[in-house]
């Protein structure tokens, strides 16, 4: 198993938004997509996904609909709303800025200003 990294606060929400940005997914598929996107590096207890989905839906960033999964099972599909898409854009920009700053900071060596 790959090493586990604890999720920073807010990262799970961002990952979910990213995961469903390419099309509607049910909960389990969101999990798989996140695993795939992060190369399995970021793992959460699987149940923790659902409160996050509920929270995002409550905030109006996601909308949900019951549908049928690839193996003919009833499942709830989540889709990004317009507000969710905006949020994803903002958060991504914010995250990239932070990541760039962090990695620059961490690469700094003595002598460099």
């Amino acid at each position, binding site marked *: 198993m790959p090493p586990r990294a604890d999720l920073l606060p807010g990262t799970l929400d961002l990952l979910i938004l990213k995961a469903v940005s390419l099309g509607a997914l049910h*909960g*389990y598929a969101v999990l798989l997509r996140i695993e795939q996107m992060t190369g399995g590096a970021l793992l959460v207890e699987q149940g923790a996904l659902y409160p996050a989905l509920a929270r995002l839906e409550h905030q109006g960033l996601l909308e949900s609909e019951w549908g049928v999964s690839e193996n003919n099972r009833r499942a709830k599909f989540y889709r990004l709303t317009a507000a969710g898409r905006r949020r994803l854009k903002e958060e991504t920009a914010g995250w990239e800025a932070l990541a760039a700053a962090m990695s620059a900071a961490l690469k700094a060596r003595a002598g460099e200003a």
Partner: protein
Amino acid sequence: MLSRLSSWARGVFRRDRLETDLAEEMEAHLEMRAEHWRAQGLSTEEAARRARLEFGGLDRYKDECRQARGLRLLDELRSDTRYALRQMRRAPVFTAVAVTTLALAIGANTAIFSLVEAVLLKTLPVARPGELRELQWTSRRWKAVAKNYDGAGRGNAAKEVVAWSFAVPVFAYVRDHSASFSDLFSFGGITRVSVSAGGHAELAKGQLVSGQFFRGLGLDAALGRTLGPADDGPAAPAVVVVSDAFWRRAFGGDPGVVGRTIHVNTAPVTIVGVTPRGFLGVKPGDAVDLMVPMAQLRIFDEPADSLEDAGRWWVRVMGRLRPGVPTEQARVETETLVHQAIVPAGPANEYEPPRVDLNDGGRGIDTARWAFETPLRVMMAATGAILLVACANIAGLLLMRGAARQREIAMRAALGAGRARLVRQVLTESTLLAVLGGGLGVLVAYALRQVIPVALRPVANPIDLDMEPRVFLFAFSTLACLLTGVACGLVPALRATRVGAKLALTRPVAGRAEGPRRLGGGRTLVAFQVAVSLVLLVAGGLFVRTMVNLRTQAMGFQPERLLVFQMNATLNGYAEDRLDDFYRQVIERVGALPGVRTVTCSRYGIPDQGATRFGVKATRDDGTTSEGKAYVHYVAPRYFETMGVPLRAGRDVSWTDGRSASRVALVNQALARQYFAGASPVGRRVELEGKSAEVIGLVGDVKFYTRETPLPTVYVPYPQSSQRSMTFAVKTSAEPSVLAGSIRAALAALDPDVPIYALRTQEEQIDLAIRQARVFAHLVSGVAVLALLLACLGIYGTLAYSVVRRTTEIGVRMALGADRPRVVLMVLRESLVPVLAGLAAGLVVALAGSRVLSAMLFGVEPNDARTLLGSAALLLATALLAAWLPSRRASRVEPMSALRCE
């Protein structure tokens, strides 16, 4: 925001759906994961186990999902409510007391508030009432502005006169030139008119209105049409718009009423429309039945040139501001226009342009509100105070229950309930009590809604208000309930939950020796209740004494076995000799009825039925004169005999003292004292309205107004002056009210078109005159007694609880030799401290506050020592009684059993 609300609402209202969705969604996840593991070669059981393991705590995540949707608070509220209901069922007496207390308190407050709303706050049911303004003018030399002013006015602090009536030409000029108002309209005063419609005659309230009245108000007819400018022309036919109330009363709500002709003051008038139901006119509290165009002023007995006479200021003016025009701009423009309108009329030398103000007209004209403002404030204060006492009382009871439940609360705290959670739980309980009480209270208020306005009006006419319950009121009651709930519960909740979990569990609660300090909060509440109760008792006492003084004072006449009623034949076209003769015939016809001893009539009824003072000049024997004011009262023969006013000297008026006979008058003793220095006035002369009359008799003093001392009065035979309405008085040999039917029948035979009104016994008439005082006496003393009972309950409860808690201590004291009387004294002393503190505070407040009432009192000073001390003594005695019961119980404590409790 919207998405949250709708998602929350889905959660609240479709809760079952949400729960099954949640379960199904997670179930699907688990199955798909298990499938994944099975595909990896694990057994079915092992795959399912692995899936569950990876998922984590199913219930925990479900709960987090609910929480994410904002539903946890609701769940807790639900369980708190269930818990509170269980607690309430467990203590039914406490619950009943608390709910009843709150029902009375909230009910009384809602009822009074509904009245405040109807009288003081409610806007007219017209289009955009916020745009309406009423014109008002202020002047130091108002006589120079309005030569002949007819309408309401008042003086202000700057010694100016504030007035609301305008001359019609002034109104017309402003209307035609104003750029700020889209519509400007005027109306006369509300007058009584005689109406006969379909063989039925009655006295109704009519008002002359200008052609723009309805357009300016933005009011459409419910039936037919309203009046327009075309109806207000000199050649327009006589038409009328009637009120919904009149339409229902006189025509039984017949939809075919439009086009019917009725007779208003004998003139035929055609009904063109009916106003909508909630519209009672523009004067709050005084509903209008008939609205007639100004041009028909002759029907209303207005002087014929009232529309052209620039010197006669008699109409009130309202207007609708154009949208976006600032009030100040409109005011300045109107002020200029009013000045311009006056100047061509040739103002007097001392004339200064009056200042014009624009009052808010959205709630109707202002004057009606003054009369009710003080009484309403007093009632609001009294009912507000009772709500405070009720809150304090329930807070005290909850405080004690909180103390008794310390162990339970400590247990819950130990099991992990946060303090906020515990406080919320106690608050849920008190709010639930308040909501239950409030619900009952609204029913109480609903029952009272027709009673209070009738009781409030100081004179005989009922006050006309639209008292239908409104959403606004329910909002008020709901708010009152919630505030009450929080106010009652907060202190007890904080106090009860302050105790540390460990502390309360490790030591026994009941039976522990504890000083009175432990109940500090309860004692403060008792002191507070005592103080408020005392203030209410003092106010109630003052009002009761006012009522008794008014009812028992000598009025100067005998009200027993007298029946009074009024007629106004001038409205039916009777005048001069025919009018005198009509009234004489009424007297003769009624006098011939069996059971009638004497009949008479007079211009005004007594008491409080009108009568104004005029200038009189009395000429003494030596030729010197003295001038002053006196009531002038117009009477028929046998007036003094019928009313039981003693004739001290000379003779009564007789039918021979007619219109053309030499002028005669009787005077009362007050006049004789003041103008004739006590010498007999008979045979001397008095001059009134510029005409000299011989004094033919001297009579006893009569009070025309209940709150005045008798003033100089001149009695004139009624045919010797012009008359309008007459008040008839019938002295009967038996119970007077039984004659009402035969009187009506006899007079219908005389002229069925002249209505009889205000038929009642003289004693009812007096009761009506002092009705406001009676209402205050009953209401405030009732509220005070309620407060007293509540305070006693508080004292009793606090003390009884303290005795239970101190059983051990008392046992120890008794074991150490304290005897029973000493224990009783000790407990009583303890209870007396907050009572005395409350009494002292209450006395200070009562002394300072009762001055506000002085204008409403009669024959008693606001700082009346007897009332103050009497109230304090009553309160102290009741408090002692309430304290005595628990202290007696304390003295019965058996030392041994008390010690065994530990």
